[in-house]
């Protein structure tokens, strides 16, 4: 049902139309806040801006509340409306998505906490270049996946899932580089460890962004593509473009 975008307004029950449109809008709004949290966390770290780090952490309370509120609305709609087919998938995918968004927010807060720790220690550890690079990749993924949600664009969702493979590769490379830094200069270990935790959080954010893309694919196509390789997701989407290296990656689950 790829043409169901206008579908939320076609129910005989106007109230149901409003409710569905409501959770969809709120989920996208929550996505916007989470996107900002991640962006601010990376900026706070790389620019040593602890005020921004504190502000970003405060946003986390807001996204926690939004998760509870949207999830509650989903539960109520399932109980009261007994949704079926695309309506049911929309509600289920939103309920799953807000959980991933909330956890992206948690990871952003963790990055802020490390930024504050690093600032307080007075150190200026190496590894910011890697953090900035991977940070830019995952920020782009969140931005793209939210756009994909707004447009119900599965090709875009697939590109986000694929981008996660690249993040994982970059993450492994960066970790090796950071280990080298620590071996070269043992005095830097505590500072670089903080950066390693940041990279770990960024990599997790990439995983959550991929989950979001998978929730959207389920919502629109009806196929649950979690724990599948990119190649098999591509088949689900009937995408017959030539495979590249990432498409064929056997570890792309």
């Amino acid at each position, binding site marked *: *049902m790829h043409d169901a975008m206008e579908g939320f307004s076609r129910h005989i029950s106007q109230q*149901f139309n409003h409710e569905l449109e409501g959770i969809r809008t709120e989920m996208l709004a929550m996505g916007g806040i989470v996107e900002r949290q991640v962006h601010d966390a990376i900026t706070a770290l790389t620019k040593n801006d602890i005020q921004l780090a504190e502000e970003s952490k405060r946003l986390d309370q807001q996204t926690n509340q939004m998760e509870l509120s949207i999830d509650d609305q989903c539960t109520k709609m399932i109980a009261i409306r007994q*949704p*079926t*087919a695309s309506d049911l998938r929309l509600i289920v995918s939103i309920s799953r998505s807000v959980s991933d968004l909330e956890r992206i927010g948690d990871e952003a807060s963790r990055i802020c906490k490390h930024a504050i720790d690093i600032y307080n220690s007075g150190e200026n550890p190496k590894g910011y270049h890697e953090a900035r690079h991977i940070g830019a990749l995952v920020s782009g993924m969140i931005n793209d996946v939210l756009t994909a949600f707004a447009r119900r664009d599965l090709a875009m969702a697939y590109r986000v899932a694929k981008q996660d493979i690249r993040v994982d590769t970059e993450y492994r490379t960066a970790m090796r580089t950071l280990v080298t830094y620590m071996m070269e200069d043992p005095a830097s270990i505590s500072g670089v460890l903080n950066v390693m935790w940041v990279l770990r959080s960024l990599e997790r954010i990439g995983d959550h962004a991929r989950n979001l893309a998978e929730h959207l694919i389920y919502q629109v196509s*009806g196929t649950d593509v979690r724990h599948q390789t990119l190649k098999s997701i591509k088949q689900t989407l009937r995408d017959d473009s030539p495979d590249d290296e990432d498409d064929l990656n056997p570890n792309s689950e």
Partner: protein
Amino acid sequence: MTPAKIEIENLSLTFADRQVLNQINLNIPANQVTALIGASGCGKSTLLKCINRLNDLKPQCDIDGAIRIDHEDIYQKSYDVTDLRRKVGMVFQVPNPFPTSIYENVVFGLKLLGVRKRHHLHEAAEKSLRQAALWDEVKDQLNQNALQLSGGQQQRLVIARALAVEPNILMLDEPASALDPISTLKIEELITELKQTYTILLVTHNMHQAARVSDFTAFLDQGRIMETGQTRDIFTNPRRKATEDYITGRYA
């Protein structure tokens, strides 16, 4: 896939030039519950009645195509309609017990078929009432008038009456629409029990009832089969937009 108990092939039906059923092709699997869903006037009940040949005597009714039960065409001239109706039990929307005792209601069909032995009738009455999950509630009042039972009990009594003649197909036309939620759940539970023994065909407007109790669903729209499939697929990911619109409550 379980073998088909009922095969409907190119079935069309017109009432005074109005096309009610249009080229219906449908296989109804044995010992499963098949639900027919669709808006009012789409032909669900007419289709059900065709399987019992209840449309035969209607004036200006023209039926074309074939319905086979156990591979035998029920519309061929030599087919015994009385035997067909014994094989295919039917229960309607509003419970319709006869204004006699509970016992007489259940054994009515058997008596009509010429069964006279009392112990045979008693056994059959108890067996069918048990199958219809009514025995424990009525065993001490079998001589009471059936009309004094509650609506839910009356509906189960009517099911027991249908079961007494040992059919192999049970057709239920909106069996729970006039019942309260608890009675509805009992009927649904009963349907699930009965499918071990019978092939069940259920017509319902209650989509969630179809979703709860049926294994297969066929969606009818304006006399045509729009989509058939496993119930779990139809209700989570229907293939056709018309089905999607109907089950999600959208304007078509």
